[in-house]
């Protein structure tokens, strides 16, 4: 199981996770209506500068997190180049790349427990209305943790299928994909139980 957080501390770790999450929400919100290759080229350069400010090892770690997305972005670009407009495709791909890079920056410089705490803090006022705040925070942490793993699982299944088939990926991969996820889920639930289970403070 891979970790999305840098294994050592940097200056960005010192920033409160709540601020970084808030920045992510704001950036996601304010970039929504904007398109354009130039704009997102500048934005990507800015994020890469942020990466480099963490040190070259951290930058390599961060760019490594982009790897599962590269094929996907290439497909999106190809799709637009063939069926639409290359410039528009570039704009979309750069925008996605920027958002992924920025989100990864937040992820790799924030411990999941800090992220969970930030969410907990924002949701805490709703706890009195019966909102299971700790469970929600744990849910966030687990989802963010497992998305790259399941993405890799899907890629692995597709590769294995392609090795033995003359055709491309098939819908038949849905079953092994889902069964793998269910089995992982049972193991995670067992691990949680072994550590005392999910506590719910009233």
């Amino acid at each position, binding site marked *: 199981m891979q970790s999305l957080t840098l294994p050592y501390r940097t200056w960005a770790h010192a920033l409160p996770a709540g601020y970084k999450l808030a920045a992510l929400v704001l950036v*996601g919100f304010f970039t929504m209506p904007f398109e354009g290759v130039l704009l997102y080229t500048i934005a990507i350069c800015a994020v890469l500068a942020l990466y480099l400010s963490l040190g070259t090892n951290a930058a390599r770690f961060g760019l490594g997190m982009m790897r599962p997305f590269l094929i996907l972005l290439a497909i999106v670009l190809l*799709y637009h180049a063939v069926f639409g407009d290359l410039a528009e495709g570039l704009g979309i791909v750069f925008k996605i790349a920027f958002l992924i890079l920025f989100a990864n920056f937040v992820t790799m410089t924030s411990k999941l427990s800090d992220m969970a705490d930030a969410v907990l803090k924002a949701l805490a006022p709703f706890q009195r209305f019966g909102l299971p705040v700790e469970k*929600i925070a744990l849910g966030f942490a687990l989802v963010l943790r497992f998305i790259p793993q399941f993405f890799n699982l899907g890629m692995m299944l597709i590769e294995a299928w392609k090795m033995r088939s003359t055709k491309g990926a098939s819908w038949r991969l849905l079953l092994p994909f889902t069964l793998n996820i269910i089995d992982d889920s049972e193991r995670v639930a067992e691990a949680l139980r072994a550590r005392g289970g999910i506590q719910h403070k009233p």
Partner: protein
Amino acid sequence: MERKFVLAVMFAALICVFSLLPKFMMPFGVPITAQSLGIMLAGAVLGARYGAIAVAIYLAIVALGAPLTSRGGGIGVFFGPTGGYLIGFLLGAFVIGLVMSKLRAGVQASAFVACLIGGIIIVYLFGTIGLHYLAGMAWLDALNVNWIFIPGDIIKAVLTAIVTAQIYKFRPEAVLSRQ
């Protein structure tokens, strides 16, 4: 308790991964994606309560700004022309699970019918409301946008039915909609 909750969380991750698959753009800026396949699976396998929890976690992660869709992420997507479909996903998964648990037919047939009702009618209903209010489209135009998605969504309903029945065969304890 942990089991069902973790299953819902894992299906939220599954929906996220499906959402990362390439989309096909349709007129009026409505994308066709595999994410609705994930929504249907979550509802059919996990049932109303945990299916809705899975979708809610997925939507929350999107709202937080995680770039989990080809449109990026953030609160902004909920205000886009297709925001209604996102709300429709939540209620759609709930209805799929509800229909699944009420029907007494086999898992495959029940899942198919449940997906038609929850995954298509409910999702389209909220999508249409969204197109009307968010994109300023006339009701009939907004409704007519949906026809183009029907063939794709029927295929997704069939796939969901087949896969759910197979999961019921190999991991019956995971199909919470039939416990």
